[in-house]
């Protein structure tokens, strides 16, 4: 079935490098599969973590990294596959069980308790007791100081409130907690995302310390320089499958990029003959105090403009600013030659710009309302007359757009909550189209939906631009970006890194630009 070249999948266990203290893996996951309704998140993946070594888990957004972390920490149960710890078969039926096996995860935003002290955070759930069964505060503080000392983090006051610490120090506390429960497997899920350069250096020292203590570390990051700096091994995931693993010292960056992006052609994108006209939307110098800076681009009539970048590159934030949901500090937005300054989503909708948000459940559908009320929600100003609803108009509007999108539902009065993910997405798109926009911004339009629904969404996008609409498509899926866009804007760290014409553009260029790797 899988006909693409499997780069560097090593069938035999790789020989440990000479510096490693142990040859046998501490944790082995093999043949792990996990599906959610309509989505195959992981298929037959394997991962091994070795004591005293850092393994980097690399993959695009949606490759299945987070799902795997949730399986390792007992939050999700795999549909199939085996887990073994120190060579013994194990199950992780709960977060508590994973904790008991010494598996601990340190997340991008640390999951600790802001209003408790450092010592309490370190010992929560396993605090030392006095002989009366009450918490032995003195021992707890002393132990906390000791743990922090051994980590060379003695500058952290064990009595300080956690909320008074910076993110880097919070990471240190999280690690101290891991040390205090004698964690043997430490998962770091994008720990550097919110850190400064100096703090990253401190974190790396800490990881070196964990290595020297014989901990097995899983390091998840999008940043290649960090991976090469700190990790010994790598495992690459793509579309929920493991496509390569090995030692980093034997593998170049470009080889890993190729593993990340090479893929099966399992999806045909619609043929389009783009008829691109004059600029419709021009953005220049758009800036936000914290999220993005000096964003400038043009969107032309009948064009699909792809926005690619890593998570956190600021793509959604730019789009939300254009859609009037967040404010900007500087910059101009011009629609059809007229400058606009949307102060609310209603302003943007009125002007002809709609934003279809990424989180379908939270930001898109209103579960509990029937389909037709969902579709008409942003168009109520048009379908109502002096504030009085006209249900017949709403129904007609909903019918015409849901039919165009081939929505499968028994009736338009059906609650959207009863629809499949793909059909919910169609309702969301119908709802925005019904506002008769000039520019439609789709943020991850096919994230987490099945192949059939993806094809329908893509087909409809092609139809829209053919009718003269202009589309901005924010996507982290390379095939989608390459298959649908006329031009691609790549963002990195809140700025536009490059804009490409999608002629002979290849995935590796995009990944390199997004990650900041020189060609």
């Amino acid at each position, binding site marked *: 079935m899988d006909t693409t070249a499997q780069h560097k999948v090593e069938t035999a266990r790789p020989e440990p490098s000479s510096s490693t203290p142990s040859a046998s893996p501490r944790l082995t996951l093999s043949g792990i599969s996990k599906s*959610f*309704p*309509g*989505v195959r998140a992981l298929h037959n993946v394997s991962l091994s973590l070795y004591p005293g070594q850092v393994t980097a888990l690399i993959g695009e957004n949606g490759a299945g990294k987070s799902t795997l972390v949730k399986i390792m920490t007992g939050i999700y149960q795999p549909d199939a596959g085996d887990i073994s710890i120190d060579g013994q078969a194990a199950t992780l039926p709960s977060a508590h069980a994973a904790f008991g096996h010494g598996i601990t995860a340190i997340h991008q935003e640390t999951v600790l308790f802001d209003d408790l002290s450092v010592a309490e955070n370190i010992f929560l759930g396993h605090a030392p007791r006095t002989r009366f069964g009450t918490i032995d505060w003195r021992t707890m503080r002393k132990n906390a100081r000791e743990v922090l000392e051994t980590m060379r983090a003695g500058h952290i006051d064990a009595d300080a409130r956690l909320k008074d610490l910076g993110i880097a120090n919070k990471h240190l506390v999280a690690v101290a907690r891991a040390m205090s429960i004698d964690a043997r497997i430490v998962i770091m899920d994008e720990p550097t995302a919110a850190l400064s350069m100096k703090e990253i250096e401190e974190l790396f020292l800490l990881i070196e310390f964990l290595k020297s203590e014989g901990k097995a570390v899983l390091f998840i990051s999008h940043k290649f320089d960090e991976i090469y700096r700190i990790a010994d091994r790598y495992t690459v995931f793509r579309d929920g499958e493991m496509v390569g693993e090995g030692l980093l010292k034997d593998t170049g960056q470009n080889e890993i990029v190729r593993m990340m992006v090479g893929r099966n052609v399992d999806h045909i994108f619609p043929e389009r003959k783009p008829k691109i006209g004059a600029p419709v939307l021009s953005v220049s110098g758009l800036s936000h105090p914290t999220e993005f800076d000096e964003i400038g681009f043009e969107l032309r009539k009948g064009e699909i403009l792809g926005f690619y970048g890593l998570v956190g590159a600021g793509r959604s934030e730019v789009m939300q600013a254009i*859609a009037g*949901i967040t404010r900007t500090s500087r910059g101009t937005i011009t629609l059809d030659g007229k400058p606009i300054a949307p102060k*609310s*989503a*209603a302003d*943007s*909708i*009125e002007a002809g710009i709609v*934003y279809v*948000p990424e*989180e*379908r*459940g*939270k*930001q*898109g*559908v*209103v*579960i*509990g*309302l*029937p389909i037709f*009320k969902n579709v008409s*929600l*942003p168009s*109520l*100003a048009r379908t*109502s007359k002096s*504030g*009085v*609803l006209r*249900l017949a108009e709403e129904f007609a509007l909903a019918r015409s757009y849901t039919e165009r999108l081939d929505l499968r539902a028994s009736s338009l*009065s059906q*609650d959207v*909550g*009863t629809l499949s*993910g793909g059909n*919910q997405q169609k309702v969301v798109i119908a*709802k925005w189209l019904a506002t008769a926009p000039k520019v439609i911004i789709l943020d991850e339009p096919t*994230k*987490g939906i099945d192949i059939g629904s993806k094809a329908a969404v893509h087909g409809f996008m092609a139809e829209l631009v053919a009718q003269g609409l202009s589309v901005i498509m924010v996507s982290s899926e390379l095939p989608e970006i390459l298959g649908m866009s006329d031009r691609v804007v790549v963002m990195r760290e809140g700025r536009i890194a490059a804009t490409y014409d999608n002629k002979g553009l290849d995935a590796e260029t995009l990944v390199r630009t997004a990650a900041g790797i020189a060609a």
Partner: protein
Amino acid sequence: MKNFFKYREIWLLAGIVLLIGLISTRFPGFADPANLRPVFNDTSILMILALGQMVVILTRSIDLSMASNLCFTGMVVAMLNAAHPAIPVPALIAIALLIGLVLGAINGLLVWRLNIPSIVVTLGTLTIYRGATFVVSGGAWVNADQMSPDFINFQRVAFLGLPVLSWIALFVIALFFLVMTRTQIGRSIHAIGVNPTASVYAGIDVGRTKFIVFCISGMIGGLAGYLWISRYVIASVEVANGYELNIIAACVIGGISIAGGIGSVGGAVLGALFLGIISNALPVINISPFWQMAISGTAIILAVVLNARGERRQGRIILRKAEAA
């Protein structure tokens, strides 16, 4: 979802019928329309108040100040009537609506502009409005003999077999039904309760909508202020003290989710009627007020259990989608 609402309201209706049946076994005349009409009339004020509270709760907010608003507005119109008996009752009702609107708008502005949780805002204004009643009245009462006959009798006039008070309640019920099902603001109220984030993206101004619902509950509080004072013919600082909890209880029994987004006009009306029947019937059949409170309390808990079951069913759908995303 719609079917589920119906389902829940039908259960409540069945409960009310059962309750009337039970009472009839002890007091045969109870189910007689001639007897039920006064029960309805007696519950009218609670029904009106429950509807005002319902729109607030639907938006994930709460208005604890309604009873204090009622007390203040009632005192002001009673004092006006005592001082200037010539002011016609419709004008006094208009003044009551206006005062209520101002008090509600204060709540609404604090919630909207300062982004303070409504439970905190209205807990504060609950005390302030009652305190203000003391300030305007100097602690004095306005008694029946100070009120004009028109002031007292307006709501008692029979029209087509029902007193005006009942007609006002029916009018308010119809108005709320139309607003909730046939107007843009009604749809917005519902939508922001179900999913505030999605509503923002759809161009609904969540803050302004919340402001509007507090204005509505304020006007209702003001209207109820006149109706209450002219019904019980006494205005004092103690009027409707603690009654905000009865209003919320009526909403909860009526299947309006405290978490917002779920609830209907029919539910609020039936919830109020349930409480009204209990408080009217139990004394008649010689059941102590203790049992009255126990039955109301049981009904509240039962309603919350039913609500929680309904919401859990909905929650699972969201969870599944969240996982798939």
